[in-house]
């Protein structure tokens, strides 16, 4: 919406047809008004619930640092908790979520439940990268208290990498076990680095990372427990894996791209 704003028209108008400027200004005003009205219609949503209590702090209970595809819902809802000065959960406090354009929240505004928590489903925007979402509540003096969370959206190439990760890499590189996938991490004498370990991976260049994947650990003077995948994975597969590793590393890699936050 802001890209196609009436401001552009207004700056353009006086230069071109000065003698008609008055009528043009009039037109611009009408245009601006119609824009404003259409904007206000769009942002109109369910009525904001009235808070019954106020907290002093807002903390994350779960749902941060999740990974999903562009435009898709996060696998788990985001849960935040509002606490008072003593750190006790506050019921009925207003929590509002906001993020970059394209990020959607269901619901965007809500009151905390009996355990002081608000649970929100979040769908990320259409561009791959990091998204910052902000949860805000208001304290007794109506001062805004904010919590910032980070989520990751994978584009096509990173999604491909994440699938390859699940098929070939994750069994050793992810220390977490699930019912369906028991981790081999603990069985290895020399521990592999989980892909979220940004401090390790950010220090390795793309070329070195590609070499380690294609020719195994010894290519970088590391353990032979990391096998060579160069005959199993294609070059574009390896690029996709690197793109995935860059996308999920924490702290963020410098190849990870910008962070999308509100405004």
């Amino acid at each position, binding site marked *: 919406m802001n*890209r*196609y704003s009436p401001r*552009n028209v207004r700056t*353009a108008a006086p230069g*071109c*047809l000065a003698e008609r400027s008055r009528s043009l200004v009039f037109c611009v005003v009408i245009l601006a008004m119609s824009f404003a009205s259409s904007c206000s219609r769009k942002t109109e949503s369910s009525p904001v619930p009235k808070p019954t209590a106020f907290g002093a702090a807002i903390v994350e209970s779960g749902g941060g640092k999740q990974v999903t*595809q*562009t*435009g*898709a*819902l996060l696998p788990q809802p985001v849960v935040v908790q509002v606490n008072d000065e003593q750190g006790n959960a506050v019921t009925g406090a207003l929590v509002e979520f906001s993020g970059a354009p*394209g990020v959607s929240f*269901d619901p965007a505004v809500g009151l905390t439940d009996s355990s002081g928590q608000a649970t929100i*489903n979040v*769908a990320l*925007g*259409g*561009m*791959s*990268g990091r998204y910052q979402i902000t949860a805000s509540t208001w304290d007794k003096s109506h001062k805004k208290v904010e919590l910032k969370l980070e989520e990751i959206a994978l*584009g*096509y*190439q990173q*999604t*491909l990498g994440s*699938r*390859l990760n699940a*098929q*070939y890499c994750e*069994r*050793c590189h992810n220390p977490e076990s699930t*019912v*369906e996938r*028991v981790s*081999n991490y*603990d*069985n*290895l004498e020399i521990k592999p680095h989980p892909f979220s370990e940004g401090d390790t991976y950010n220090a390795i260049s793309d070329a070195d990372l590609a070499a380690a994947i294609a020719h195994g650990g010894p290519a970088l003077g590391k*353990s*032979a*427990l990391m*096998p*060579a*995948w*160069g*005959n*199993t994975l294609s070059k*574009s597969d390896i*690029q996709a894996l690197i*793109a995935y590793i860059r996308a999920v590393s924490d702290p963020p890699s410098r*190849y990870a*791209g*910008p*962070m*999308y936050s509100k405004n």
Partner: protein
Amino acid sequence: MREKLAALWEKLFGDSLRAFGVVSLIFLVSLAIAPAKNFFSEWRHYQHGYLRMIRNRSDANTLQRHFQAGIQQIWLPELGVVDRCTSCHVGMKETSLTDVATQPFRKHPVIPHQLEQFGCTVCHRGQGAATTVAEAHSSTLAWEQPILPAKYIESSCGQCHRGPLPGTPVLNQGRNLLSRYGCVHCHTVKLPDGSAMQATDDPPSLEHIADKTSREWIYAWLKDPQAYASTATMPNFKLSDDDARDVSAFLMANSAPMQGDALSVSAKAALDPTAGASLYGESFCASCHAVQNAAGNLVGGNVGPELTRVGSKVKPEWLQAWLRNPRSYDPGTAMPHYRFSDVQVATLAGFLEAKSDSDLLANVHLEPATPEQIARGKRLVSDYGCASCHEIAGIKKPENFAPELSRIGSKPITQLIFLSGMPHTLPDYIAGKIRNPRAFAAGLKMPQFTFTTGQVDALTTALLALNDRANTLPPALSVATAPSSNYQPAGKAGKLMTDLACFSCHRINGRGGDMAPDLTWEGSSVQRDWLLAFFKNPGTLRPALIRRMPRFNLSDPEVTELTDYILTVYQSPAVDRDSLPLSGYSSGQIELGKQLFYGKYSCQGCHIVDAKNDKGYIGPTLTQVGSRLTAAWIYQWMKNPQLLRPGSAEPNRAMSDEDALALTAFLMSQKGGAKEVAKK
């Protein structure tokens, strides 16, 4: 007023020279409108913005060189593409712009296609020829298809790619759901290649339903299938109490008794109260069937129905007959025919009957059915199209019961009726319809499914791929899916394999499930003695797997029949089983193989050879591999595992012949128990 106008007229056109001047001026101004509009056009504004943005970057020179001013266009006549999007989206191919967050200047993310080959609107929709943001991105009077929201973008891949792709999980999921939830029973979906999409849910025949369950259960199930099993794929038809009463009355009255005396309770269950649970576990029922545990989580597979409340559903004598031989009730079932003894049948049946929920049928009290109710039930069954999915005696499967969806992805918005408050776009309509089908008008028949938001998005994505473009693409662009195979093994062994439902888990020659290893070349892989013993008592090859081969209690002749058939028929052209000896390798070779195993190739990361020291358990345990696999298979596996089993997680190490042979020698020396005994 009149005088004023007259004075103005006089002033402007009073004499001919003045009139000429004024007319010229008007003419000049009107001529200037077009260039002025062009000069102040949006795309020019963005191009100026782009140039301002790159001016201060370190790579400004390169970017400046790549930049082309003016309207840009990608024209692909054979695709019907005229895309001017690159007029504003100027930096799409600049790999150095990864740090730019603002549109329209972001670099396009990496995809496997070239921009020049497909343009933009083939994937993103929108009006390609437009040169203003509003016209290009939104619905206008002249153009219906707005930009496709990112969450549905994979639908565009599905226009050409008919099969699953590794990079499109949402599309793949959506297509699976269309088949798995039986959408295509009622809605015909003709794919652009002319074939029709097939359902994979196999709804049960209702011809003998009275033998299987009670009318009360049918009533409760019809009212709310998910109350019985949260994983049920049967949708909720939102029947009234009377409707459910009459439909259940009709189904019971319409059911014919099973042939023969299959329904009989013959033996007493084992006395040990834990025997049932351990038989359930040993038979790996959980590989296919899920049960809710105390914490409320479902544990088990989703090939067969959930069994959490099965005791409230099935009649004991039917359950015993089913466990004795499921094929006598449903010849096409995916459930194997375990050769249970009568005591085992009774024990397992008793264990399953105890899985009941007294609340489920507590409030269901039905009077005996009247003929009118049965007749009304029959009418309802026809009205709701029950026979689209289920076989029901006396009712024909209706043709084209629901609207065809073959081109739903291009349905004109003018033909849709939207709910109030709903955005007027096709994806929103489709998603809304799946979410709450009956909200759109009174008297609609489409039942209510219980899909998560993610599933609705996936289904919408799959449906959006069924559009005009998919049907009119040049045939050369379409990427066909792997043809489905109807391979059927021959002879006695073939019958046995059908009876054991091997194809429910294993794939052979392109047909079958993916829960267990592909057996297409199993005959080249394993030794005869091992396979014989494995059928009698399937052991665990992979300690980390929860799904395992069950024991079918096969007789000796059955085991021999199957083993010989597999070893003879399922041979790989890449492996000659007898080309390498099973034993007799030199100790030097074995020692070299051991060094390679633990050193250069570090196989112990994933495999266990020495049960005391090795820990890796991604791959199969190799302590007995020398008595399990043929040497020729191991050798070829070392050379190229994916040649023998595509998609295997074992990396291809491109080993030299010497290395492969040494490792084969070392692995063939791992004979398990036998070796230990020989040492002592």
